[in-house]
């Protein structure tokens, strides 16, 4: 067994040990090493972004880069009690940028284009069911009372139908989620069979 396999196997067993022995030193150490490598890698990746887009640009004389560098450095103010308010402009600009970009894309992506695509010809049963589904789900969200989740009168038929469509959608997501999770388990079982037990896969 080569070093790579030995290291992978150690970490696999250490983390799997949680399901059999709950919190134990091997699991804790493996988990902390995993978090350390992950967080360390994020710092390294961010450093190279700052180097390429920040310091290198400043070295070339592009002083415009000074503004985002200062905004970024202001974020460290959160660790100093008296001046923690200095982080607010940086956070505000990031949040506002995200809100502006999200809004302009969302108007078409999540709203207009989706409504337009729901206008299907009522020529077959599938289209009729589809339109009923979209309308009933939207009705559920718009006409359900905020805290009691009760709708009044005849509209409750439509909102109940909307609930069933949502349950089918959530069921489909659940089925797909199972598939995704199980594929990682299959990968691990395959790894253990091939590398530890040397059983051909």
């Amino acid at each position: 067994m080569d070093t790579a396999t030995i290291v992978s196997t150690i970490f696999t067993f250490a983390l799997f040990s949680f399901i059999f022995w709950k919190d134990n030193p091997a699991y804790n150490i493996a988990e902390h090493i995993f978090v350390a490598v992950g967080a360390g890698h994020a710092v390294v990746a961010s450093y190279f972004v700052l180097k390429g887009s920040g310091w290198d640009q400043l070295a070339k004389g592009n002083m415009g880069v000074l503004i985002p560098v200062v905004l970024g450095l202001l974020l460290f103010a959160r660790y100093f009690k008296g001046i923690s308010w200095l982080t607010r402009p940086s956070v505000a600009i990031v949040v506002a940028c995200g809100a502006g970009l999200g809004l302009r894309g969302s108007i078409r992506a999540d709203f207009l284009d989706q409504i337009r695509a729901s206008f299907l010809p009522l020529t077959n049963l599938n289209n009729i069911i589809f339109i009923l589904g979209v309308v009933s789900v939207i009705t559920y969200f718009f006409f359900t009372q905020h805290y009691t989740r009760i709708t009044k009168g005849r509209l409750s038929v439509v909102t109940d139908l909307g609930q069933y469509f949502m349950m089918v959608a959530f069921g489909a997501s659940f089925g797909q989620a199972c598939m995704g999770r199980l594929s990682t388990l299959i990968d691990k079982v395959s790894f253990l069979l091939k590398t530890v037990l040397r059983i051909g896969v």
Partner: protein
Amino acid sequence: MNFWTKMQGVDARIIYILMMVAIAIPLVKPIGLPMRIMPTTLQVFEFIEKLPSGSKVYISFDYGPGQGPELNPMSTAVLNHLFKKGLKVYAMASITEGPMVAQSMLAPFEQQGKVYGKDFVNLGFFAGGEAGLAALCQDIRKVIARDFKGTPLDQLEMMKDINKITDFALGVTVNSGPGGYGTPEVWVRQVPIVYKTPFVLALNAVMTPSSLPFLQAKQITGLLGGLRAAAEYELCLKQPGMGAALMDAQSAAHVVIIAFIILGNIAYFSLRPKRRSGGI
């Protein structure tokens, strides 16, 4: 204490072992069940098949190593197709682990003779989430200064005519919906909606149901969902790989989960009358 009450109290570790044994059996003794190819997978395959040789395609590896078992077969199948067609591949990532994943996916092709800088390039991580993506779409060099190996982009032959997102013939994101960064919705909002460029979502299974509306509304060119789509893509290429090999084990795993759900519900309903009368 009746049978169903004992069943409800069974140690969870027994369930875990049963699951692992059920998965191990088809891995050791494959069944080889036939599989049909879904229209959504065929749609992506046919689009790439029609791209002329030399076309430039970017792939964003927006998944961490934890989602590798599900998305690596898909990445490999798509990369296989792109290289077979003689297309130029530009790898990038909106999450920090993405470039490392991309490198491990591209390494086998380099060993097969594909040349870095001529056939493919790894542009590395672009920061900033949605804002970074929006900036990258307008001017790649404002967001990515150097590639994964540290070479300035202007020194790469493949980057000669590439300045913005519309310079590519196709974009693909292999995406697990990483929290806060380049989720599928972010890519759809910022790329195909704004620039009307061909775009494919290659997603893990859990993201697929919520992304089907994008496909139905023709906002994206195609959608590949989960390990199943990876296996189908391999069949389209007539090169069965990891995806196809794991489908038997996937079948067994699904049957086990459904069996557990059914057994659990039988136990629940058979115990319910006793519970109502305060029997247990």
